[in-house]
């Protein structure tokens, strides 16, 4: 694969090497801040490498269970921002560019790690100045298939085009001044070309940045798991899958009976929840995170949280909005107990009293949602070297 290496970035890399060699790196404020925050090496100190022919992000050959009308209804791609190979490529560069943070220390990819299905493996994430978030970074897998197109744990973000810049300008997370961002990016000679290829116009605007990021996020479709292979050959989701072990099929049956009402409603592909739910994580309505209720102030929304797709859930620990559960066993223990008695607890959350062998079967099934091709796909990886 051929790579394009922008001249400006080569110079910056050389400059960074000089800084390192002369010991000035440690005294450089930006580098120091990055080090303090445990952050990535700034993009400006690395080389952007992109393939000559863009990776394929658009027009994926999705399996039948993704393309059935019931599943397609979940697609939130807006008519005015379809995903293109060039647009998602630009989005990928932006996603991993530390210049989106105020002090050039972290990128979106710092907290959304591909190998972990784009969650942060830490319970909370460190912001650009070292501050810690109070929620776990959500998985970005299959964001395209959230039909209500509301994002974040509390659904405060509208469609992806509207939500992608919120973490960028968040004062704790990336702290960037959005008004300044186009100018910052324009200083890199590579960007105007990338914007032109993506949108036919080299102008760098907040809107174009948001659209490109949204395209990249929407392109992150995981559809090549063991579940998908089995589903493609089976008569129905309920039928035993030939490629599953007995334990996995038992786990699937249990999942369909007890979990699918929320996590696989009305289709058989996405493993997302259509609406936020109060799962009885907390009893107290006053002190803990109020979730959607803190945004709407609707009493019935207090304690309700959005759920990410369960695809690749094996790798998205720790779990829940505050990362309180370190493993899937703890999650199943929660649902097995029926959760705590929050007044808004959803009626679907009932004590399930799973036996140990049922828990093992459910976990075995959940692991069939792992898509290793997705987790290692270079088209989603950091393009800066």
């Amino acid at each position, binding site marked *: 694969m051929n790579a394009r290496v922008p001249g400006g970035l080569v110079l910056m890399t050389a400059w960074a090497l000089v800084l390192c060699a002369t010991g000035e790196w440690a005294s450089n404020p930006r580098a120091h801040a990055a080090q303090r925050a445990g952050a990535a090496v700034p993009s400006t100190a690395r080389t952007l490498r992109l393939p000559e022919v863009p990776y394929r992000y658009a027009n994926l050959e999705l399996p039948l269970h993704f393309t059935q*009308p*019931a599943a397609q*209804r979940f697609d939130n791609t807006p008519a005015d921002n379809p995903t293109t190979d060039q647009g998602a490529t630009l989005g990928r560069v932006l996603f991993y560019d530390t210049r989106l943070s105020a002090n050039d220390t972290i990128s979106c990819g710092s907290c959304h790690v591909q190998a972990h299905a784009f969650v942060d493996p830490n319970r909370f994430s460190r912001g650009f100045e070292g501050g810690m978030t*109070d929620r776990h970074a959500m998985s970005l897998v299959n964001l395209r298939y959230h*039909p*209500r*197109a*509301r994002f*974040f744990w*509390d659904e405060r973000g509208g469609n992806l085009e509207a939500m992608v810049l919120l973490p960028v300008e*968040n004062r704790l997370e990336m702290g960037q001044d959005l008004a300044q961002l186009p100018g910052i990016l324009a200083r890199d000679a590579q960007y105007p070309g990338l914007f032109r290829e993506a949108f036919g116009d080299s102008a760098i605007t907040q809107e174009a940045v948001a659209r490109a990021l949204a395209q990249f996020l929407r392109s992150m479709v995981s559809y090549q798991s063991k579940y998908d292979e089995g589903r493609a050959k089976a*008569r*129905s*989701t*309920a*039928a*035993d899958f030939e490629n599953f072990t*007995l334990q996995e099929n*038992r786990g699937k*049956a*249990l999942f*369909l*009976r*007890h979990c*699918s*009402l929320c996590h696989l*409603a*009305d289709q*058989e592909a996405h493993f997302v929840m*259509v*609406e936020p*739910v109060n799962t009885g994580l907390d009893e107290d*309505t*006053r002190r803990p995170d*109020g979730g959607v*209720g*803190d*945004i*709407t*102030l*609707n*009493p*019935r*929304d*207090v*304690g309700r949280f959005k759920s990410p797709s369960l695809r690749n859930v094996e790798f998205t620990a720790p779990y829940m909005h505050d990362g309180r559960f370190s493993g899937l066993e703890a999650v199943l223990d929660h649902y097995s107990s029926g959760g705590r*008695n929050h*007044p*808004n*607890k*959803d*009626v*679907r959350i*009932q004590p*399930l*009293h*799973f*036996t140990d*062998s*049922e828990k093992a079967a459910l976990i075995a099934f959940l692991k069939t949602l792992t898509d290793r091709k997705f987790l290692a796909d270079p088209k989603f990886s950091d393009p800066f070297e």
Partner: protein
Amino acid sequence: MRRVHVVLLTLLSFAATASAQTTESPDGKKLFVAFSGIGTLGTRVSPDEVVARLMSFDRNSDGRVAREELLERMQDLVARGDSDSDGALDATEIRRLAITPPAADPVRGLQIGHYSFGGEVGFSSRSHIEGALDDLRLADSTRDQALALVTGFLDTLESPASATLLKEMESLLTPEQLADFKVALTSRDLGRDLRVFSSAGSTPRLVAVASDLAAHIGRYGLPPVQNQQAHAALGRFTGGSRIGHAERSALLDQLKDILSDEERDNFRAALERRPVVKAGSAFGFPLDVVLRGDVVLSGVVDRRSEKAPRTKLFATRHAD
């Protein structure tokens, strides 16, 4: 001409947890009704609790929550509710926001339903128990043995209750209604009702529904006293055919020679669960169907027949 490409079996996994409610239009046609709402256990957080929650952010105890006292993600609330433009929210303003929250976003093409315990909306113990047996994924011969035993056990448990119910209904329903009720009672035991709902000119939809016996009674338009008696009879039936602790133990004891200890453990756990179903919403899929006029087709799918499908669709009403 009617051409129904049946995709029922594909739907079975979803039918297991879904139901729809239907009602009658003034001209007697069945209508497809969707509800929305979130099921909770009956309690809800009150507006007062929302006020108390927000006021807990009042770090300087001045009785108002200023923008900077709120978490960044909540700061837009001030712009939404600050009616006196003092840059903060007081308890009155918070309360106003709590009782007039923004309208929920529509869900494109999807129906968000509410949920209920299966036993309360017509799902029989039989489907729950047989489903629990299915979930064990037993070897065929073991499953057949266990199913035969479970079926016999349930027949013994339910037959007297069903007979009593039908006898009581005889005096309350017309012969037509009684026939309809018998079908509903039977399909409740067999598995799932699947119906095609359509009006002339609209896209037919296949909808999975439970045979909600109470809804059936409701549709008969009985005079108040008979209606009450019918529901009371149904209540007795539901109570009489429910598998309780003693029945559970007896059944598990009978399965001792068929299932392993682990399988019986899992079966016991499954039987102790109360199945929750989507009770207030229907889901449907457009069918490759050519229909003339208004039509409602009904089908009964025997969940046990997946290996040898015995699905049938039959017209119960058509007006063309």
